[in-house]
C-alpha cells in the first residue's frame, strides 16, 4: 500500500484579484521507505506539493492521502496531531529553536508534541545524537553550531518521533557541497536504518544524483517520473 497518494491535486493562490495556479492536476504515489525528490525550476510547485503532503496546506481540489489519512480534510488541531505523529520536517534554514540546546531541540517533539516519558526521551535523543554524529555538541545552542551541524540536529529532530515521512525542503541549499554530501549520506543511512520515507524538494544536482525516485515538475504539472541514480 502506498504511503503517499496524490489524486488530481490542484492548488491555486490568490494574488490580489488574480488566481495563480501553483499545481494543475498532479497525481502520483510514493511507497514506504522511499528516497524521493521533486525537482524543477523555481515556481514549478515543489514547495507547494511538500506543504500539501506535510498537512501544512490543503489542496484546492483533488485528494492527498498520507498514511491512509486525507490530510486536506484535517482541521487545525487534527492537522497538528497528525504532523506530530506521522511527519518530520527538515527546513532549508534549519529552523531550530534558538533558546534550546541541540539536545533540547531534538527532544522538543517528544516533550511538547508526544508527551513521551523522560527515560524514553533520553534514550531516543541520545541514540539520534550519536547517529547524526552530534553527541559531543549536545549542550550547544544553535548559534554555537555550524550550518552542517544545525542541519544534523534538524534531521535528528525530524526523525526522533519515528515519523512515517520526512519532508525536506531544499535541505542542502544553505550548506557547502562537502557538508551537503555528508548530510545526504546521513539521511540515506537513516532511511536504511529506520525505514522512513524521505521526500525532498531540491535544485541541488548532487542531491538529485543521490535519490532513488525523481519527480520532475514544470509549471505545476508533473513532467516526468523516473528513477534516480542513488
Amino acid at each position, binding site marked *: 500500500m502506498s504511503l503517499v497518494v496524490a489524486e488530481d491535486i490542484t492548488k491555486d493562490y490568490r494574488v490580489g484579484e488574480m488566481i495563480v495556479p501553483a499545481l494543475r492536476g498532479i497525481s502520483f504515489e510514493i511507497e514506504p521507505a522511499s528516497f524521493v525528490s521533486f525537482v524543477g525550476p523555481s515556481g514549478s510547485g515543489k514547495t507547494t506539493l511538500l506543504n500539501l503532503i*506535510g498537512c*501544512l496546506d490543503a489542496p484546492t481540489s483533488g485528494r492527498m492521502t498520507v498514511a491512509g489519512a486525507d490530510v486536506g480534510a484535517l482541521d487545525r488541531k487534527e492537522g*497538528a496531531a497528525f504532523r*506530530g505523529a506521522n511527519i518530520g*520536517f527538515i527546513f532549508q534554514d534549519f*529552523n531550530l529553536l534558538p533558546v*534550546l540546546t541541540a539536545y533540547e531541540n531534538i527532544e522538543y517533539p517528544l*516533550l*511538547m508534541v508526544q508527551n513521551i516519558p523522560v527515560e524514553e526521551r533520553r534514550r531516543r535523543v541520545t541514540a539520534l545524537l550519536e547517529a547524526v554524529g552530534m553527541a559531543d555538541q549536545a549542550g550547544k545552542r544553535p548559534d554555537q553550531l555550524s550550518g552542517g551541524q544545525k542541519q544534523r540536529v534538524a534531521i535528528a529532530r525530524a526523525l526522533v*518521533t519515528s515519523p512515517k515521512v520526512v519532508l525536506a525542503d531544499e535541505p542542502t541549499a544553505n550548506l557547502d557541497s562537502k557538508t551537503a554530501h555528508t548530510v545526504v549520506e546521513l539521511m540515506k543511512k537513516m532511511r536504511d536504518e529506520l525505514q522512513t520515507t524521505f521526500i525532498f524538494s531540491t535544485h541541488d544536482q548532487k542531491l538529485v544524483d543521490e535519490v532513488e525516485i525523481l519527480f520532475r515538475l514544470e509549471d505545476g504539472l508533473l513532467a516526468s517520473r523516473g528513477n534516480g541514480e542513488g
Partner: protein
Amino acid sequence: MMNLFKIALRNLLRYKRRTLLTASLITVGVVFVLVFVAVSGSFKAMMIGQITDAMLGHIQIHKQGYVASIDNLPLNLNLNAKTAARIDEILGSQKNIEASSPRLKFGGLFSNFVESTNIRLNGIYPDREFKTVPLLTSRISEGRKTIAKGEILIPALLAKGMKVKVGDSVVIVATNKDGSVNGKQFVVAGIMEGVTGPGGRDGYVHIEDAAEVLRMPELEISEVAVRLKDFDRLQPAFQDIRKQLETEFRKGDKFPLEIHTWEGLSPFFNIARMLDIMTFFIKLMLVALVLISVLNVMMMAVYERIREIGTMAAIGTPPGKILLLFMMEGLSLGVLGTIIGGGVGLLLLFILNVAHITFNFGQQQGLLLQAYVNPMDFVTIAVIVILVSVVASLQPAFKASRMEPIVALRHV
C-alpha cells in the same frame, strides 16, 4: 508545564534589555503604589486616630433626631435617665468595648464678670471621658490635665479673647429646657485647643455641674461616646451594639435611638474616602502601566518570532501549548516585576520608617509617620499585577496560537 515555563523564561532572557525595561516599568509601578498605599494609609490612620481619640470616640449613641439638630445642642432631645442607665448596662456587657462616656451637652453664656460670649459645653465624667477619648488630655495646653467638680476647661481662643487664665473664676449661664435661666461659677482648670488647632468653642465641665446649671431633677444624657478595643472591627462592633440596642428599645417600627460610627459624624470621613479614591486611581494607573508594557512587549515577541511559531506549529505543537507558552512569558514578566517591585517597595518603606519622619497635626507635635502596608494590600497589588500581565499577554498569545504554520514559515 515546567518545560513550557523553562522555555518561556529563556525567551525572556533572550531579549535581556527589553525584558529588563518592561520589568523595570512594572517595578516602578509596584513601588509607587506600595509606598503611596503605605504612606496615605498611615496618614489616614493617624488622622482618624486623632479625631476619634481626642474628641468623637469610635461610636456615638443619641436620641433619635439629635444628630440632625446637633448644632443647636437641643436639650429636648436628651436621653432620659432610665434609658441612659440601660444603655450603660448594655454597653458594659459588650466584650468588644473598651470604655464609654455619657455626655450632657448644652450651649451657654460664658462671662469673666466684665464681658460675656457664647460657649458650647460638654458635661462629662472625667475618668470615663479620658478613657473613651484618651488623647483629650493632649489637647489641654495649659493647666491641669483633668477637671474636678466646680472646674471648667475652656477653649484657647475664648480664653485669649476674654483674657482668662488658669485659676480665674468665670460664670456659666444657661437656659434649661423649660426656659428658666440659671448660672454657676467655675474655676478655670485648664485651657484646651481644638483637634485641628486652636479654634473651636467647646469647653468641658463635670457632668453633675452641667446637670446643676440646667436644673435637671434627674440626669439626662445628650450622647454616649464609645471606644472599642479593636478599631479594625468597627463595623462588626457597631452592628453588635445596634442589634443589642434594637432588641432592648425597638417597639414595632419605632426605634428611639440613633447610632453612628465616627464616619457618620465627622467631615474628615470624606477626606479619608478621597484618599481611598486616590489610592484606587493609583492602582488603576498601575493596571494601565502593566497592561500597556506587557501587551507591547508580548506583541513584539510574537511579531519577531513568527517563523519560530511556524516551526513549532509545523512540528505538531498543539495550538493550546503555543498559547500557554506566550502567556507564561507574560506571567513571568509580571511575577518578576512584582518580586523586584515588592522587594524595593518594602525596602523603601523600611527606610522611611528608619528615617523617623514626623509631622504636626493640631496639638499633636512630632507625629511619627509609620509607613506600613497591610499584608492584604500587598497581596492584592501582587495579584493585580500578575493577573493583568496574564491578561495583557492573552491577545498576542492567542494570535500566535492561531497562526497558520505555512504563513508563519513563509514570514521573512
